[in-house]
């Protein structure tokens, strides 16, 4: 524990800018994954343990698409759309058969998908790790704001993730589809009774959730190594975000992801040997004070 270093950092604009940027990039990428988990749980009450697989496949698809098109934008689009489509197939072929089943059955189905696609990745892309490399447009020196370091690539990623958060928030609150999704989250039987095609609705929810995870994987691919099983590490943190934010709450996921990001960003200065532990302590404190999470509804 180094509280002196943390205090000194908080008093130095350069350190605050650098660590805040660090927290924002970790938090926003985490939000994209966790938003899908919480959306799917909110509407379908399914805890999608296979969500990390969407993140992993999104990165790999983008990696391949970049090799073919030489365009990072197309690579990101490919990773997102491929995972949206994969989400629909996953829901229709597998998950739709375990709605209302024992949670252990759902867990088993999801875990099977994780293991199968880890092996598929090994067969298609090989067991070794891959790196996409930084797109040429972002191979530029970092910006210096108040003495703090802000990489342009990360600034763009934060911007994209923030835009997605706004679009998702507005879409859920202001569009007909969004309102239907929210209604289905509260009372799916009533929504179905009113004539809404819930089969299509559930598939759309999985498409959005899968697409968001694919987007996160594709956006992060230039800086994170791609390897079979990589989805597992982000899955744990995205569940923490989902639980802290409140199961089913998109706004809660955003706030919780930013909290985790900032704990990582500043925790590494003040608690360098205990950053991971700190995240769990924050989670325990929040759940003791609000068992339903920051924005969750009491059951």
């Amino acid at each position, binding site marked *: 524990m180094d509280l002196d270093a943390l205090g000194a*950092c908080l008093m130095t604009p*350069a*350190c605050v800018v*650098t*660590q805040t*940027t*660090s*927290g924002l*990039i*970790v938090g926003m*990428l985490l939000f994209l994954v966790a938003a899908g988990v919480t959306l799917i749980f909110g509407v379908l009450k399914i805890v999608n343990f296979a969500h990390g697989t969407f993140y992993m496949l999104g990165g790999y698809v983008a990696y391949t698409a970049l090799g073919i098109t030489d365009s990072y934008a197309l690579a990101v689009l490919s990773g997102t759309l491929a995972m949206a489509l994969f989400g629909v197939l996953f829901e229709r072929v597998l998950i739709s058969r375990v709605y209302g089943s024992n949670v252990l059955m759902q867990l088993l189905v999801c875990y099977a998908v994780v293991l199968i696609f880890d092996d598929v990745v*090994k067969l298609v892309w*090989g*067991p*070794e*790790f*891959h*790196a*996409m*490399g*930084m797109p040429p447009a*972002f*191979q530029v*020196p*970092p910006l210096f704001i108040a003495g703090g*370091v802000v*990489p342009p*690539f*990360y600034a763009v990623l934060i911007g994209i993730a923030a835009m997605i958060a706004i679009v998702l928030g507005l879409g859920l609150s202001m569009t007909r589809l969004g309102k239907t999704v929210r209604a289905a989250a509260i009372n799916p039987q009533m929504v179905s009774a009113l004539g809404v095609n819930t089969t299509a609705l559930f598939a759309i929810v999985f498409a959005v959730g899968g697409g968001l995870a694919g987007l996160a994987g594709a956006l*992060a691919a*230039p*800086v*994170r*190594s791609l*390897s*079979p*099983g*990589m989805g597992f*590490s*982000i899955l744990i943190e995205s569940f923490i975000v989902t639980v802290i934010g409140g199961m089913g709450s998109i706004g809660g996921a955003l706030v919780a992801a930013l909290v985790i990001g900032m704990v*990582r*960003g500043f*925790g*590494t*200065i003040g608690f*360098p*040997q205990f*950053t*991971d532990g700190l995240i769990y302590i924050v989670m325990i404190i929040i759940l003791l004070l609000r068992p339903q999470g920051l924005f969750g509804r009491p059951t």
Partner: protein
Amino acid sequence: MSGAITRRTVLAGGAASMLAAPWVARADTKNLRIGMQSILSGPIALLGTSSRNALMIEQDRINAAGGFLGRQIEFVYRDSKGQPQEAARIARELVNSEGCELLIDAEASSGAFAVQEVVRDLGNVVCLHTNSETSSLTADPKIRAPNAFRVARQGVHDAVAGSMYLSDYANAKKLNKWATCSPDYAYGRDTTAQYLQFFKKFKPDIEVITEGWPKLGQPDFTEVITKLIQAKPQALFTLLYAGDLSAFVNQGNVYALFSQMTVATPNVDYPVLAAIKNLPAGIQSATRYLETFPDTPGNKEWGQAYLKRWKERPTNWSWQNSLAMHFYEEAIKKTNSLDAKALSAALSGMKINTPFGADGTITMRDDHTTIGYAIGWGQTTPKEPFIIDVKPADWGKIIELETDWKKQQKYI
């Protein structure tokens, strides 16, 4: 019930007998089976696979030359997934059930220590550890086994060599404020401590001003990188490796980390070099395996043969496994036997000619570990040969300081 024997009964009986008595099915073969176990799945599977690739090349070479004792050799490959308990089980099974007469243990250290005890217990088979670098495996007489040998780098050798090079470099560049960033498990912490111990011996005025301990396989190193930038060290020593090192370099590039401090690592290997799309120039790096070091026709020929066969470059684990088969070959020629005691006696003190040796030879010392292999440090360059200005380590000094270290540990 009818007493007639149906076709189905015959088929089932045949299948059952094959399963119950596998030796029947292979009774007609006189191949010499060699058990090989490694990490063939998971995040570092590429290292295990590169070990197997090297052995497959060796198998073809040895069989083309008539095999061992007139018998064609055949490897039995097993995946331990990096789990020590699985490694121990597999080692026993390879000997007792698969009829393997020699063992290649291509596990990382966690598995190698488990295999060591199995091999000691079996007693009737020789095992060559080809990938464990943890010094105590052979340095500690309580752990050393009479029929097991290490054909691989040893941590203490690399630590001495690296520290000597880095202290010279730090003196020349006046680098006193250092940071470390290594994976948060036994290898990262122990080996970092070992490097620092020797580093401080050569350059007592260095100061470690900050440390980063990311988890193994951590996807994002941003907070570690920004912490390093805040601390403003003059140089960074890191033991990150494989995908983690690649991700660290890619994320460090985003923060222009490599223009803000000198970075030194012993773990740059061909797969890492190939995966990093924007390899910064000037990283001070050891040569795990480099086709141009030692810069000899034999080393280049071996590297090119591997590349031609597998369409990728070898790793540090590849040459170590290849070398192990050369040791077996020489020992069997010398003893004309597979007897564990005879082979062990032949291997102790054996010196062989090899392209991987610093002076064209490598010796299996009588404490069951190899010495004289190529250790060099240089600096990275974005294009081939990737590491240039390589300076070879002084093996005389390495052995002198290794002996001091062994005394300190009460091993001798």
